[in-house]
């Protein structure tokens, strides 16, 4: 029994000794070494990572995705930690698609512990690199922007910078709504690097979806038609806009060339960025003002001389003719410059200027796209003696295609000028339709549409653009481009703006072709494009024939 007690005593002493040693060690680590160990643990086992918020989608009116975000990674190397740069560069170069020498140069960059090897690498590639398990290679999670439908509506959708911020178009205009809020996640790992605790310190808030009024099907058709115009006439640029005139919703907005070639011209949204002299499409504005002021009616007759002497200018029509009499409807039908001037004279400079501004020219339309130009419109007190010789038929003022579409939409919807808009909803919440203001009476708008119907009739400047079964109204425009203070004889802007059906238009389409080659006329360059677009759109949108 004494032996047993002694052994138990020994064991007790051993246990107590070991326990004492453990306590002493714990006290040492917990007091003397506490600071350094805490720092080491914070850097080695606790990491706060930023969880990038997925940028909101941009969709068309039916939810077709035009821009989405997907996971990607930046690949970062710490040259201090790369043990074998040669073999590492060999493995990485095949995954990165970069020459090995380039990777090796980065991996051996002196005096730095941080080198980017790649930006926004797709997740699959990044995972492959992660699986290489090369010490000193880190993946920084990011999100990259992809456009599943390529260049469709490229200038409307816009683009993002490398850091994910909007750079243009809707991406820029609605950047705040799209970007969301990045989250912060705290991960505590054990000594082997296995996470043992994950806390979302700040939750990730995804960006909101921005739904456009753009109709993807119509948009693609408009782009296809513009591409044909581009191929046939090799213009400097071209743009087309399709709008629902009752709401101002932009159903399609296309530019040629598209942004694929990366040229500066392609990057510009010509629909809102092109200042051009509208030419004869502007005659409708002159006539609208005169109609609304009660100065003319559709049947008011004008004696049209072959040449109109106005101050120091001689005004010709595009087609030579003798003395003739045309009523207002026919002036629009055959697009008489002299006739438009005579109507403008009845208005006078002050009232003409009033109506130009009443239709929204000289200021941005307010469309929800960045970078909209306001055009150049002189005030009436700045007119020269001969200004009224060319302003009434669309020379001497600069407008944007979007302004023209807004003005013609007002004619189409009964006289309400409303800002066009391209965003239908943000985060599922419908954006309000911009309020409109009545600028001409419904009766005047109706009379004007009736007259513009004649442009498609036999003898009209766009008779070839008629679509059987459909009643359409519109106006051609062929405008010289001013070069060095003089109108060029070789550079023109061909345009056409029309609506369908005439009585209750549901679609307004404008086609503007800047400096076409081969043919220059709105009736032969832009009107056929209008015809193709509308011909495709009417069954697509369910617009019945008359």
């Amino acid at each position, binding site marked *: 029994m004494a032996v047993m007690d002694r052994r138990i005593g020994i064991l007790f002493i051993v246990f107590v000794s070991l326990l004492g040693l453990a306590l002493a060690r714990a006290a040492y680590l917990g007091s003397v070494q506490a600071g350094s160990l805490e720092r080491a643990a914070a850097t080695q086992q606790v990491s706060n990572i930023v969880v990038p918020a997925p940028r909101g989608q941009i969709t068309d009116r039916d939810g077709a995705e035009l821009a989405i975000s997907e996971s990607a990674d930046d690949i970062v190397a710490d040259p201090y930690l790369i043990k074998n740069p040669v073999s590492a560069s060999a493995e990485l170069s095949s995954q990165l698609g970069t020459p090995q020498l380039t990777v090796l140069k980065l991996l051996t960059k002196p005096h730095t512990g941080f080198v980017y090897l790649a930006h926004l690498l797709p997740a699959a590639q990044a995972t492959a690199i992660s699986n290489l398990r090369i010490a000193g290679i880190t993946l920084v999670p990011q999100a990259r922007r992809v456009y*599943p439908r390529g260049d469709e509506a490229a200038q409307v959708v816009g683009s993002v910078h490398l850091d994910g911020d909007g750079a243009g178009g809707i991406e820029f205009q609605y950047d705040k709504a799209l970007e969301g809020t990045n989250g912060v996640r705290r991960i505590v790992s054990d000594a082997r690097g296995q996470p043992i605790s994950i806390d979302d310190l700040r939750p990730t808030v995804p960006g909101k979806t921005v739904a456009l009024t753009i109709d993807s099907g119509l948009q693609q058709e408009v782009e296809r038609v513009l591409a044909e115009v581009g191929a046939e006439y090799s213009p400097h640029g071209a743009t087309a806009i399709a709008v629902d005139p009752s709401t101002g919703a932009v159903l399609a907005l296309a530019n040629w060339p598209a942004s694929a070639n990366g040229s500066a011209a392609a990057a510009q949204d010509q629909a809102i960025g092109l200042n051009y002299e509208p030419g004869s499409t502007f005659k409708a504005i002159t006539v609208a003002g005169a109609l609304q002021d009660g100065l003319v009616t559709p049947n008011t007759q004008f004696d049209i001389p072959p040449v109109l002497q106005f101050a120091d200018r001689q005004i010709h029509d595009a087609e030579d003719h003798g003395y003739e009499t045309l009523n207002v409807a026919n002036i629009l039908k055959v697009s008489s410059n002299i006739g438009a001037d005579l109507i403008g004279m009845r208005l006078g400079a002050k009232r003409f200027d009033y109506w130009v501004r009443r239709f929204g020219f000289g200021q941005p339309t307010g469309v929800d796209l960045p970078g909209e130009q306001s055009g150049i419109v002189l005030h009436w007190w700045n007119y020269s003696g001969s200004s009224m010789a060319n302003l009434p038929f*669309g020379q001497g003022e600069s407008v944007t295609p979007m302004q023209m579409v807004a003005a013609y939409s007002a004619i189409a919807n009964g006289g309400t000028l409303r800002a066009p808009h391209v965003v239908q909803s943000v985060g599922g919440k419908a954006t309000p339709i911009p309020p409109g203001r009545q600028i001409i009476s419904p009766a005047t708008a109706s009379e004007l549409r009736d007259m513009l119907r004649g442009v498609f009739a036999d003898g009209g400047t766009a008779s070839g653009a008629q679509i059987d079964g459909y009643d359409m109204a519109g106006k051609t425009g062929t405008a010289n481009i001013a070069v060095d203070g003089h109108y060029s004889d070789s550079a023109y802007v061909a345009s056409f703006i029309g609506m369908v059906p005439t009585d209750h238009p549901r679609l307004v389409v404008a086609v503007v072709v800047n400096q076409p080659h081969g043919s220059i006329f709105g009736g032969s360059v832009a009107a056929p494009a209008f015809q193709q677009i509308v011909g495709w759109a009417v069954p697509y949108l369910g617009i019945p024939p008359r």
Partner: protein
Amino acid sequence: MPRVVAAGAGGVLAAAVALPLPVPRRLRPVPRRESAPKSTTGFFPRIGAFVVALPDHPWLDRVVRGRVWIPLLGVLLAGIVAAQVEILKLGANMGSSLEQTTTLTTQNEQLRYNVASLSNDQRIERLATSMGMVLPPPGSVGYLVASQRADVTRALGNIHAPDTTAFMALAPGNGALVTGAGTSMLPTTPGVLAQAGTPGSATPTSTPSPTTTVASPGPAASGGVGTTTSSTTGTTTGSTTGAPTGSTTATPTDTTSTPQTTDQQPPTDPQTSTTAQSATTTPQSTTGTQSGSQAPATGAAPIQPAGGTQQSSGG
């Protein structure tokens, strides 16, 4: 007896007569009041009593004095270790779950990208064209007007899922237009199929009105001088030569209001037929644009520029 208290320094005696201390009274022992007998029927009192009595419990005495506590302690320690291991395993699972979440999110994004790409309208249109389908010309699409006495129940009863088999059976003949109830415009041969998308192809025979729609998206859409087609209406005149005098005397009729329909006549003119077949090889045949030797569908000659006149911006 009074006590003298010496105070202060300097040897000054300040004698004072102190009051006699009170003689402590011997307190009589207060008999402890017997507390009221506590109820032993309550739960907590019984628990308390058990805890108080535990150190003297014979079972504990036996465990401490015996060897049972060794395996008991071992089991407890093993349990603690096992719990730690489980925590580690949970952590590891958390990490793998996180990784899996990331992978699935990435796959989801990729799939969404694929869906967006595959639902591209132009792609679907190309596929449809390759299957022989064409877009009808704008004027040939009929629209039904709902009757005031419409029977909603009956209409709902007529809605059914598309029959894939029936559709595929029609596939070889797709490309023509089916108009009206029970009246098919399906051609009998693939060559005739192209008739639907033939620019400038005219049906050589006239069909008296009332008629139905005929799919011909070519120049019928343009209606320009020199183009003649039998697009939306009954009587058609003119030729396919693109002569500038030819014009369509088409009188658009409401296809929905015409109860009778007439099948399209197969082309008998070899030239027309050839034109039709060649036209199907051009993508424009589905969009109504001009092709071949037809005159441009610009209609009336556009206004020519006045030579040297700067103010000639007529449309």
